[in-house]
């Protein structure tokens, strides 16, 4: 056995060391196995397909080819660490682990290694405070925006008054599911509704008791922070107790086709939040068809196009590509480093014009990232599932969330983190000004400063 272990170790050694710094590297920490695979697969497919499109259609970004390294995490934090360590040496530009648990682990590592982390609509919500979380981004929306969007939707439905109503939160009993609780508690104080908390343990296949409780207490509304197999189970259980689906609202991670389709016609009317468009009615799909699908290059089984999570994966990749373009523009080099990528993400600006140009008109909100705000505008829409047609319909516009409440909570939580880990707060005023300026502007500024110094020197001499 000794010999076997030795050969094994030698093999690992041989495999573990293959650094290559040629391309722009995007690791895809995906999960195509385990209880969360149903949601992990479409996201990973969309993420990779977009990069394939960029390579095939544009020849990479700014002339640099894109390389995606996929690493299977199984939504498991230990495997996530292994994936991070094995890919960071390859020149990884940005990590998108699609797991709040893994995100928590990577936040300190990313700060130490200087590799940015983009947790789009998940992760640590207070990372939106860019003054403290230098390398972590969670634009365009975060969990607390989600929580507020649910409440706002209920307010809109009830003409602005939900006093005395009950809202039950069915959540994955993990960091992910616990994230919205604090915000919902604040909002329940503000709007006077009652909050019921119903945790569901990993992986979430056993929810009988929670739904029996819901049948007994009859909350007016149910909202869900679920993921993976938990989503479909919850919707099925809700259908079993004949809970009115239009009063059941999931966060954006509980609103994909894979969550509602197993329930069939009974899932009709189920609502879920979203922060981007649904369906495949976008010009970009023509490009994808031409450059990727028709060549047989689609990632995975190729059957996920147009699904909610496929679109989200694509959106994540699109935002990463735009950030690379921005970074290339700021630093004037094509082969950027992770630190330069971070600068690009911080200076990212997405307008409707860019979206249209990219073949994604009306796909997502326009927003701008800044040094202080890494969280974007936090706009969310509500979608409703039409079981007969088998598609999601967007039933509200991207609307504002309660930033008064959320902003305060973000400050509180991020300063607690800063205190616990002795992180110094960045001074955003000066650095963001420089980040916003082009090279010519900086040169002009320097000239002006120089002229002023000369002037002062002359004045001093005259004295």
């Amino acid at each position, binding site marked *: *056995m*000794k010999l076997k*272990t030795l050969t*094994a*170790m030698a*093999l*690992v050694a041989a*495999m*573990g060391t*293959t650094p290559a710094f040629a391309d722009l590297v995007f690791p895809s920490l*995906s999960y*195509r*196995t385990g209880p969360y*695979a149903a949601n992990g*697969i479409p996201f990973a497919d969309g993420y990779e397909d977009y990069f394939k499109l960029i390579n095939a259609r544009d020849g990479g970004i700014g002339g640099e080819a894109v390389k995606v390294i*996929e*690493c*299977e995490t*199984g939504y*498991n*934090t*230990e495997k996530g*660490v*292994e994936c991070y*360590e*094995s890919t*960071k*040496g390859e020149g990884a530009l940005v990590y998108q682990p699609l797991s*709040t*648990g893994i995100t*928590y*682990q990577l*936040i*300190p*590592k990313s*700060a*130490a290694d200087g590799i940015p982390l983009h947790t789009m609509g998940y992760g*640590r919500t207070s990372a939106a405070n860019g003054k403290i979380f230098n390398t972590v981004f969670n634009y365009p929306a975060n969990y607390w925006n989600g929580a507020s969007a649910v409440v706002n939707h209920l307010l809109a439905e009830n003409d602005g008054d939900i006093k005395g109503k009950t809202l039950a939160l069915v959540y994955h*009993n*993990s*960091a992910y599911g*616990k*994230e919205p*609780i*604090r915000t919902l508690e604040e909002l329940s104080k503000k709007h006077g509704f009652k909050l019921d908390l119903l*945790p569901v*343990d*990993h992986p979430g296949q056993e929810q009988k008791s929670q739904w029996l409780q819901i049948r007994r207490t009859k909350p007016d509304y149910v909202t869900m922070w679920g993921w993976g197999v938990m989503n479909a189970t919850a919707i099925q259980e809700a259908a079993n107790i004949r809970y009115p689906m239009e009063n059941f609202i999931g966060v954006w991670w509980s609103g994909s086709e894979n969550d509602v389709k197993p329930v069939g016609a009974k899932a009709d009317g189920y609502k879920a939040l979203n922060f981007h468009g649904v369906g495949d009615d976008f010009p970009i799909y023509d490009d994808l068809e031409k450059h990727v699908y028709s060549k047989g290059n689609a990632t*995975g089984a190729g059957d996920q196009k147009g699904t909610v999570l496929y679109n989200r994966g694509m959106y994540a990749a699109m935002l990463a590509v735009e950030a690379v373009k921005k970074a290339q523009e700021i630093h004037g080099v094509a082969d950027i480093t992770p630190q330069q990528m971070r600068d690009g993400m911080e200076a990212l600006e997405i307008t409707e014009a860019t979206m249209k140009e990219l073949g994604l008109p009306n796909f997502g909100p326009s927003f701008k990232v800044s040094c202080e705000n890494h969280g974007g505008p936090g706009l969310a829409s509500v979608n409703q599932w039409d079981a007969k047609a088998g598609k999601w319909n967007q039933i509200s516009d991207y609307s504002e969330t309660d930033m008064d409440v959320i902003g305060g909570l973000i400050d509180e*939580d991020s300063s*607690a983190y800063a205190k*616990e*880990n*002795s992180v110094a707060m960045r001074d955003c005023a000066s650095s963001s000004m420089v980040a916003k300026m082009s090279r010519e502007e900086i040169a002009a500024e320097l000239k002006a400063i120089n002229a002023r110094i000369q002037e002062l020197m002359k004045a001093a001499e005259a004295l």
Partner: protein
Amino acid sequence: MLYREVGDFKTTYRSDGQTFPIAFDRWRYYIVLLVAFCVVPFIINDYWTNAVLLPFLIYAIAAIGLNILTGYCGQVSLGTGGFMAVGAYSCYKLMTGFPDLNILFCVLLSGLITALVGMLFGLPSLRIKGFYLAVATLAAQFFLVWLFNKVAWFYNYSASGQINAPERTLLGYKITGAETSAPVTYLFCLVLVVFLAIIARNLTRGHLGRSWMAIRDMDIAAEIIGVNPLKAKLTAFGISSFYIGVAGALLFAVYLGAVEVGEVFGIQKSFLVLFMVIIGGLGSIFGSFAGAAFMVLLPVLLKNVLVGSLGWPTDIATHLEFAIVGLLIVVFLILEPHGLAQLWRIIKEKLRLWPFPH
């Protein structure tokens, strides 16, 4: 030829009773230690430490702990994950409650706290045995995970219920936190592993270990010849939990840095450590190391071979990995129920006689 007692004369009782009575074995042991302490720290990088060596060392401690309880004392435990969680959460509370406390003491104190908790949950073992005890420890597993999820005091009322290891140093070197260097964390864990393994080895060779083994082999007979079952079982639970607690503390503070109890210390962790012990070999310290190496290294190796060099899709590779590891476990249990340690023992027996087997 090399591996034999012949010509290796013992002139004192001390040398006769040492752990490695055969000179060649002894030298091999010294060389392994020398390489581990003086060569490995200079050649490892972040990947090697964080993906391979740290989990191996930490799980080796947990496996030694469970081996003391299950392998030496014969008390089946499915509560390993829960006890590791006790270690991790005590370490977190100590680290945040006493910021000036040395991390080494934090880890050892978490071990002690876990030992107390372990002894508490070991009390039923005085009445029940076998499967029934396994179920009682399973209850401990679920209770402890539930407790750490439910009582916010344990995670300092953080919004997410996650615990994060703040930065702590030892002699000026960073042991926990984000900016640790690979050799430092490795050496920290290695020192603890070697220290604990030597203690475990000597405990199991001494009076206490013999009383554990007597209880394991036949508790009634042991009681008749004067072994106190209360003392034997509770010390086994206590010492085993101390090791498991230290492993849990290290897993949280040094290896992962952030932990969520349900995901990291769930029932699958209990089974993982139990598999390590069974595959490595019940009642063997070497077996604990071999089992930990098998369960930690094999998946990484398979992943690197299948995805890294053969370029297979990650999902197929992962599914195949499950199948291969599962198959190997079954094969081992059928062909060598006493685990890797027994294979090692057979090899040693053969080597003694080599090249004249008859």
